[in-house]
């Protein structure tokens, strides 16, 4: 199909339909309401399930049930709503079920605001639910990439039987861009869903979807198996982009909307003769530690840019292993960073360096 102009949230809905989503369960939450709105129109016409749940908690548990029944399932929400879903996300990870969660970040904490933010990096990558588990988190910076990662995300969820989160902010959800919905994505071999509770007439044995292991030895074994799976995810699913890294004097690390804004700042600095490169993490968990090995010796320092007061910077510190100075520039509360601010942060780099002593 030819390119078309689409709003981010509508593109999410269309990409999910294209990816063959069987069911959507959600609850209204600004700034992502167009996702359920469009799906309430598309899915019933395709003979698929759309259900507006009574709460975020109910929605994620409906996802749990339908995922356990072997279907391709998703939900979407925003910051506070994702906070409410954490119990269910932990269960889904614990019971090893696949699902896709779209998280459109707004300002916090608490009810916060409804403007774009990246203050839920910890929520997404550390998880607000209980236990030793991980959610695979993918952070696109454009609407096209959002479409592509939704399609890939469903497959990744199926392969690892684990929740996959598409983490964007209100800016990507609300803006319009020219996109190609039919752009091919990586083809992956998907495992059969032989775990599904569909009635014993349809499979051998008896299937049980469960995360309870009262015997500590069994629970430790289960957790070690989960960790082995996460190690495979770390080996296979790291995604990042390196931009203008060769001979870079400074390297920006930014994802999502912040990376797009940083691209403009890089061009301004280039015009002033300052060469700045960028590491753009696409998978936030697993974090692209290996990208940091490619920072050239010409680098005088790293600048982490986030629409928060510094969350991903923790992962950058771990990945950097003390090699280069690390500075941070961020705005929060729903303020979108101006490229000029990033340019100035590079020009006055020392001012923004974070010291730990």
């Amino acid at each position: 199909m030819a390119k078309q102009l689409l709003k981010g949230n509508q593109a999410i809905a269309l990409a999910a339909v294209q990816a063959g989503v069987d069911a959507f369960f959600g609850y209204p939450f600004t700034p992502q309401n167009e996702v359920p709105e469009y799906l309430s129109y598309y899915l019933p016409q395709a003979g698929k399930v759309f259900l507006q749940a009574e709460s975020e908690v109910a929605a994620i548990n409906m996802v749990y049930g339908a995922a356990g029944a072997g279907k391709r399932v998703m939900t979407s929400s925003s910051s506070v709503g994702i906070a409410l879903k954490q119990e269910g996300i932990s269960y889904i990870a614990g019971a090893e079920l696949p699902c896709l969660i779209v998280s459109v970040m707004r300002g916090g904490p608490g009810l916060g605001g409804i403007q774009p933010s990246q203050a839920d990096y910890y929520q997404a990558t550390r998880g607000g639910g209980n236990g030793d588990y991980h959610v695979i988190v993918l952070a696109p910076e454009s609407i096209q990439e959002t479409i592509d990662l939704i399609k890939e995300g469903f497959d990744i969820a199926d392969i690892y039987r684990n929740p996959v989160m598409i983490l964007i902010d209100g800016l990507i959800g609300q803006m319009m861009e020219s996109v190609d919905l039919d752009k091919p994505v990586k083809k992956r071999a998907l495992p059969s869903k032989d775990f599904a509770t569909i009635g014993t007439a349809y499979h051998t044995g008896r299937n049980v979807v469960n995360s309870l292991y009262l015997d500590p030895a069994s629970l430790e074994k289960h957790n070690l198996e989960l960790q082995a799976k996460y190690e495979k995810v770390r080996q296979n699913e790291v995604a990042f982009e390196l931009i203008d890294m060769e001979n870079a004097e400074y390297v920006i690390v930014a994802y999502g909307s912040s990376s797009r804004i940083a691209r403009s700042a890089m061009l301004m600095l280039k015009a002033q003769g300052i060469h700045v490169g960028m590491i753009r993490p696409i998978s936030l968990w697993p974090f692209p530690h290996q990208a940091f090995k490619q920072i050239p010796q010409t680098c005088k320092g790293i600048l982490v840019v986030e629409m928060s007061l510094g969350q991903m910077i923790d992962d950058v510190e771990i990945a950097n292993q003390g090699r280069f100075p690390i500075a941070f520039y961020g705005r929060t509360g729903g303020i979108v960073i101006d490229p000029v601010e990033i340019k100035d942060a590079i020009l006055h780099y020392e001012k923004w360096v974070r010291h730990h002593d």
Partner: protein
Amino acid sequence: MIKYDKTKGLTDKKTHYCPGCTHGILHKVVAEVLEEMKLLDHTVGIASVGCSVYAYDYFNCDMQQAPHGRACAVATGVKRVLPDRVVFTYQGDGDLASIGIAETIHAANRGENITVIFANNAIYGMTGGQMAPTTLQGQKTTTSMLGRDSKTQGFPIKVCEMLSQLDGPAYIERVTLTSPQAIKKAKASIKKAFTYQQEGRGFTLIEVLSTCPVNWGMSPVEAMTWVNEEMTKVFPLGIFKDVHHD
């Protein structure tokens, strides 16, 4: 000669239930109904959190274990994507009527075509006998040691009465298991609920007044008597909603 066979609706796993607790009887009744209706291999059961958490080990069909209070939401997820399968939840009063009351009410109100087996024993059994939403006035529990006082702890919540006000439910009845006759009646009610589900009539719920001798501090016989003499005063038996007769 009458030959007794254990129902195929239950696995061979020994249950962990305390002596005198009615969960065992209720499991058997539900399992027998599913077996007699030839539904076992087309059924997905949802276990909840509480004493019946291990129901997934006991019912001989596909099972999911739901987070505390979320059984009706999980059942909704299963039923919506597998509308031709039988889906039931098995929940206690803490799970269904306290932490999961929103999921219960909304599943009922949507007329979700699922069957809820609600074991109400007026106490939190698994966690050690704390006050439940269904605990009677004056009833002593480990978190109402002076007896439940409505001034500060509210009133026992009447699930059947409340849900029967909604348009979604197809069948709502409250029963006991305190005598062979009562068990027979409860079994017929549960069968009716599953039949309604098979007929696509919508949400069905059978509340079963249940015993917890250990946490009530009674013998099994005393507990049965307490159900008949005290619980039924607050939770009267009967059919609260039946679309077939409305």
